[in-house]
C-alpha cells in the first residue's frame, strides 16, 4: 500500500512528506528503542513511535524507512523537522497511541493482501 494512501486512511497529520510518498510501504515497525530499530526494522517499513527527537530521523534515514509516525499527540521538534526535510524522511503524526496505530495499520496491510 502506498504511503499516501496510508496517510489518508489513518487520518495522519503530515509534518513533512518526502517526494517519494508514492512508495510502497513494506510493513510496520513499532517501538521506541533506537538500537532495536537499527537492528530489526526493514527498509520501507513505517515506524510507529512515541519518540519525537532528531535521532529518530537519523535512524529512519540509516535504515531506509518509508516514514515515522509520532503517536500520542507528539510533534517533531525543530531540529527533527529540518533534518527530515533535508534527508527526505516523511514525518507523520497522530493523537492515537502506538497500540492503536499499529492495530489499524496491521489491519490495513492485511486487507490489501
Amino acid at each position, binding site marked *: 500500500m502506498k504511503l499516501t494512501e496510508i496517510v489518508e486512511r489513518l487520518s495522519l497529520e503530515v509534518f513533512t512528506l518526502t517526494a517519494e510518498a508514492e512508495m510502497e510501504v513494506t*510493513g*510496520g*515497525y*513499532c*517501538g*521506541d*528503542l533506537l538500537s*532495536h530499530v537499527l537492528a*530489526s526494522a526493514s527498509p520501507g517499513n513505517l515506524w*510507529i513511535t*512515541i*519518540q519525537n527527537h532528531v535521532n529518530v530521523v537519523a535512524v529512519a534515514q540509516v535504515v531506509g524507512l518509508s516514514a515515522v509516525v509520532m503517536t*500520542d*499527540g*507528539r*510533534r517533531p521538534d525543530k531540529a527533527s523537522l529540518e533534518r527530515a526535510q533535508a534527508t527526505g524522511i516523511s514525518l507523520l503524526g497522530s*493523537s*492515537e*497511541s*502506538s*497500540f*492503536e496505530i*499499529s*492495530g*489499524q*495499520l*496491521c*489491519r490495513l496491510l*492485511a486487507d490489501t493482501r
Partner: protein
Amino acid sequence: MKLQDLARTIEGTILVQQEDADVRVDSAFAADLLSDVLALTEEQTTLVTGMINPQVMRVAEILNITAVIFVRGKTPPATLVEYATRLGIPLLLTKKTMFETCGLMYANGVRPCRSGSVCEMSDR
C-alpha cells in the same frame, strides 16, 4: 479477551500465571520507555513492551498493570519473573514483534489505553 486466549493468539508462553485463571485483557498500551508508561491516565491496562529490566515490574506495581507482555522474544531475567510472581502480575512472552502483537490484539477487540496527551499540559 481472556489472557489464555491472548497467549494462544500471539503464540505466547505464560511465564507467570495468576491464580485467577480468568484474567481479562481489555485494554493495552505499547511502549519501551517507562516514563511514557507512567503517563498513563487509566488503570488496569495491559502493557506490551520489549523492555525487560526490573523497573518494568516496579512501574507495573505502581500503576496496577493487569498483565505484561514481553515481545521480540526477549526473555526477562529470573529476578523479574520472581518479582512478578510475588506481585501476582501475569507475564506473557512472545517472539512476535510489537507491531504484530498489537495488530493481533487490536483485531481481537483489545482497545487502546491512552496516555496523558500534550493537550492536557496546555490547560495548566
